[in-house]
């Protein structure tokens, strides 16, 4: 009998540990790169990788792409071979190639979730890598959004999309949509919402086909690495202050309010010289002159990104913007009946993340705990004696820990983080020219001015056709049907074109 009890205890303990095994981090890391001829090898590791596709779930993946610095100092995108048999990886990963050869995806071959530790990867490129001064490999964690129909609109949010009766609409295919049958429900009375055109063409990504989306918002370190591959002229257009500004200058902030960082720590580390020597950028939020140290908020979401900045980053990374329809799909999930005023986590209540812990470090999180049925998000709460509380961005993935559920992590149905709050997402609208957007991906190369140059994308200068979604760190929340920036169907700012850098706007991309 005693034996049986011991066995029962051990069994339950194993089951408990299996279910609640601490998964410490995401901690995507690439290391030990080496090149030979056309081949680059490296090690990759990340935690909390998952693949639930055989149980009607989805999976994550890492988007890998390669850049090379030529002898003249210019960085170019390096294509990889399109045949998957020419690339190799060790267990537990498998490789998924893409038709344009701009990079490849690494994902779990096996079902379940695990921490990937130092898996070996070998990628064959289309050029001899030994001719470059330097090769750099980049990895971005993405989430796969499966094929399937879904609802847009929630029947309540400001300027949300609806049928003639004001109800949500089921999107079932990628075919063109007659927009005369779609209405703008509960229209914004302060600013006239963007008028819908007659037709949404078949080429506009509607979200019923599968696609990848970045699991997190573009981080500040991510933007720094991007800046460090640009020419002086390109850098000049992708930052707020001249690349020739003194060492330690915060590069993205409003030039007229240089002390208002809103937790952005991107600095000029080595000033550039116009026109030929680009600056070197780094993170130094704590201003201790030690670049990229453990208190510089490396993984905080990048704020102060205009549409021109975000679209340039996405073109450079061979990704693309996501549409407002895809935004609702990746948040709500396939065929899920909408909840009026719902946020990314599927309920209409939110708890504010306002009290950072381990501030600036890779462990940056908050001490706030979400209330029952509420998700945790970084948004604005005005307190008369304290002002707006936390005035700025938090680490991407700050709310998720080893045992969080969807609400606690503030995650969408598919496991995408910070869709509600932190920074506003920049999506492609079905109006103001955005309807002409197609799913063309960036080719890895931006133009000489530092702008995206993909034909169907919204104009970098005017930002016409771009819609801010999901709210940011300063967004306050009122009743359902009123001010509710974080609600996934809210289109309050459809009148606004994000052509300027704002302290609460960033974004992410897809493919």
């Amino acid at each position: 009998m005693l034996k049986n009890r011991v066995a029962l205890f051990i069994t339950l303990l194993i089951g408990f540990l299996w279910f609640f095994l601490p998964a410490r981090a995401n901690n995507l890391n690439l290391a030990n790169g080496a090149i030979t001829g056309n081949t680059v090898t490296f090690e990759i590791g990340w935690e909390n990788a998952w693949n639930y596709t055989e149980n009607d779930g989805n999976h994550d993946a890492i988007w890998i792409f390669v850049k090379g610095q030529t002898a003249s100092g210019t960085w170019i995108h390096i294509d990889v071979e399109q045949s998957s048999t020419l690339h190799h990886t060790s267990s537990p990963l498998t490789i998924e190639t893409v038709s344009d050869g701009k990079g490849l995806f690494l994902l779990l071959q096996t079902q379940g979730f695990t921490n990937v530790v130092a898996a070996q990867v070998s990628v064959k490129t289309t050029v001899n890598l030994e001719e470059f001064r330097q090769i750099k490999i980049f990895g971005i964690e993405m989430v796969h959004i499966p094929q399937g129909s879904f609802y847009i609109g929630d029947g309540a949010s400001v300027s949300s999309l609806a049928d003639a009766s004001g109800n949500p609409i089921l999107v079932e295919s990628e075919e063109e949509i007659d927009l005369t049958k779609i209405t703008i429900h509960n229209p914004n009375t302060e600013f006239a919402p963007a008028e819908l055109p007659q037709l949404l063409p078949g080429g506009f990504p509607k979200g019923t086909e599968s696609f990848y989306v970045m699991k997190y918002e573009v981080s500040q370190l991510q933007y720094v690495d991007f800046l460090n591959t640009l020419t002086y002229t390109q850098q000049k257009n992708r930052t707020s202050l001249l690349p020739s500004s003194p060492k330690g200058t915060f590069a993205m902030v409003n030039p007229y309010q240089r002390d208002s960082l809103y937790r952005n720590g991107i600095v000029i580390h080595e000033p550039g010289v116009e026109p030929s020597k680009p600056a070197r950028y780094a993170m130094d939020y704590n201003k201790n002159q030690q670049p990229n140290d453990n208190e510089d908020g490396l993984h905080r979401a990048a704020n102060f990104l205009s549409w021109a900045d975000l679209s340039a980053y996405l073109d450079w990374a061979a990704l693309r913007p996501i549409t407002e329809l895809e935004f609702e799909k990746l948040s709500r999930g396939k065929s899920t009946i909408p909840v009026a005023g719902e946020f990314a986590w599927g309920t209409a209540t939110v708890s504010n993340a306002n009290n950072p812990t381990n501030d600036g470090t890779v462990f940056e999180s908050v001490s706030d705990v979400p209330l029952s049925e509420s998700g945790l998000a970084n948004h604005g709460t005005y307190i008369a004696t304290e002002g707006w509380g936390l005035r700025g961005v938090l680490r991407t993935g700050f709310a998720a820990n080893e045992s969080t559920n969807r609400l606690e992590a503030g995650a969408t149905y598919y496991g995408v983080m910070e869709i509600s709050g932190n920074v506003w997402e920049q999506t492609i609208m079905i109006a103001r020219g955005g309807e002409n957007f197609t799913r063309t991906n960036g080719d890895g190369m931006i133009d000489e001015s530092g702008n995206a140059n993909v034909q169907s994308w919204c104009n970098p200068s005017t930002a016409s056709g771009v819609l801010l979604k999901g709210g940011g760190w300063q967004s306050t929340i009122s009743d359902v049907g009123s001010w509710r920036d974080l609600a996934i169907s809210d289109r309050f700012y459809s009148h606004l074109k994000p052509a300027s850098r704002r302290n609460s706007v960033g974004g992410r991309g897809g493919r």
Partner: protein
Amino acid sequence: MRKIYLIALITFQFTAVVNAQAHYSGGAGGGYASTAIGNSTFAFQGDSITTKAFDVTVFPNPLTSNDVFKAKFTGLKHTEKISIVVSDMIGSRLMVEQVDASDEITINLPIDRLSKGIYLITFQHNNHKITRRFNYSN
């Protein structure tokens, strides 16, 4: 009784998989990383660029089965161990070994497992790693 334990265990595991649309766990760091190879003039102690705390040269290179393969180090602390991993170009590990740190060491390659080609040898000393290529012809 045993059946009940088995069912309990399977239920735990099954529940974890079947109930999951996605995985909502997370922790430190971020979902982004990069690493550089080559003549980087700008290395940070972050997770963006691998930094070097010691250096190593392997010789002779190319080498044959008749040669004695050696590694010469600078910047090592002799009180520590060095981990050595030899792998082929598709990432298969052919040798994993730990040796005492010394300015020069002899590497006993698994000759019987090598065929003509290019291999990678990675040295790890504390938290720092360096990878070198070598060309083997038998």
